[in-house]
């Protein structure tokens, strides 16, 4: 081996050992710097994506108007289209109202955030939102939607944050089954695909009387998530050799996440 290659190899080993021995705090600091550096690109990309989808919608609308023009003399068809369009607007309006009502009526302080990137990694189920440190978003804060729990903040940077979804194995939540004394830990499953794969509710008692369709909520234990947030519904229950385990259908449609809410600490609570 050439001397310069040997030196390069030694330097590489030193660098790799340095990286592998970083503390949790310095890893977080590295990640914060990294995300601060790329967040302008992420936001620009998200804006471009929004622009593109608006353009597509405009093209679709143009086609719709063209069709309407052609069918202008056929009054009945025209009215049908108008009704269909009004229904679409009504649904959109209802969705926006639902989000607004959630923010206003939530029994805790939440801030709305837009999902700007989905599943950036191969094995983890995460999304990136457009709120970060400067908006009061901190590590481990719960992320919610009107339907239920979405996940928790994993790595906030200055103006974006990574959210680890409930469907990831790493996001564990203390959960209870409605109408029973059963309490367990719910989390995602390793290697499953699809937008909303089933969750695993573990450490239930073997004799638990759990039936499909029962609702699963957060317990509020463990100092991470507020109590009584909907997680999903029971799909099946299996009493294993030591503990019972249930499969749970998530309440949130993770494939259709656009706006989420981060529960931030109440400013009045802080000393």
């Amino acid at each position, binding site marked *: 081996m*050439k001397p*310069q*290659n040997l*030196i*390069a*190899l030694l*330097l*590489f080993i030193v*660098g*790799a050992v340095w*990286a*592998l*021995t*970083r503390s*949790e705090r310095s*890893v*977080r600091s*590295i*990640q914060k710097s*990294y*995300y601060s550096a*790329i967040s302008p*690109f*992420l936001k620009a*990309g998200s804006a471009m994506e929004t622009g593109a989808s608006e353009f597509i919608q405009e093209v679709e609308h143009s086609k719709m108007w063209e069709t309407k023009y052609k069918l202008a003399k056929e009054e009945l068809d025209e009215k049908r289209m108008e009704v269909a369009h009004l229904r679409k607007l009504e649904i959109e309006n209802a969705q926006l109202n639902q989000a607004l009502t959630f923010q206003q009526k939530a029994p805790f302080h939440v801030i709305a955030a837009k999902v700007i*990137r*989905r*599943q*950036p*990694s*191969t*094995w*983890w189920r*995460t999304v990136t939102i457009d709120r970060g440190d400067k908006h009061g978003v901190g*590590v*481990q804060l719960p992320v919610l939607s009107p339907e239920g729990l979405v996940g928790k903040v*994993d*790595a906030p940077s200055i103006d974006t944050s990574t959210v*680890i979804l409930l469907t990831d*194995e*790493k996001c*564990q939540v*203390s959960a209870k089954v409605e109408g029973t004394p059963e309490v367990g*830990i719910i*989390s995602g*499953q*390793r*290697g*499953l*695909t*699809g*937008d909303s794969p089933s969750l695993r509710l573990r450490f239930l008692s073997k004799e638990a009387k759990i039936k499909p369709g029962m609702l699963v909520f957060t317990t509020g*234990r*463990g*100092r*991470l998530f507020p109590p009584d947030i909907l997680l999903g519904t029971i799909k099946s229950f299996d009493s294993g050799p030591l503990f019972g385990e249930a499969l749970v259908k998530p309440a949130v449609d993770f*494939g259709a996440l656009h706006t989420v809410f981060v529960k931030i600490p109440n400013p009045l609570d802080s000393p």
Partner: protein
Amino acid sequence: MIKFTISVIVLTLAACLVQQFLPAITGLYGARVLILTLVFLCCSVSVDFAPMLLLAFICGFLWDAQHTLGPQGGDPEIYSNPAESLRFGYSIILYAMMGLLMQGIQPLFRRGKWHISSILAGIAIFLYLFSEYLLLNFARGDFTFPPGVFYRIYLTSALTMLFSPLIFWVIFRLASTCRYTIRYDGLMSDRQYLD
């Protein structure tokens, strides 16, 4: 040589940015194009050993900076069995191993057989993802290998491999612009196959 090395580092950083906008394809078991990994593999077959290690360090570092997850947090009495994460920095080692694999076929690449390098890039990505998943299982215990995981690894490797001719074309253009000859130090003759 230095100009070309700087160029491939810039290309790698550009690939890191492009990677942000390449989503997982839900219909294909969550497969995606790993453009950063592909650019690293294509570059590593075209540079010497030392720049390859530098690229491996940069790529692994950036990859982990983006993907490393934090601890579970909360009350340890309630969350007594947290899912472990892979340690920050493990990707540096995996990238270096892939780079070494690519360096092994550098003589063929120098002879203009870039298509073999393309196939090997696909194989390297497959091995990389497979090793990553095995490491994940090792760290978390309870070995599981659902068919979806195999399809995700296979389809990600195949999809990414399809883009390798494009990356090689960019690298050849860069080499030409920088007046760099992609050569293999182990050969005795001074013939230049790729200009």
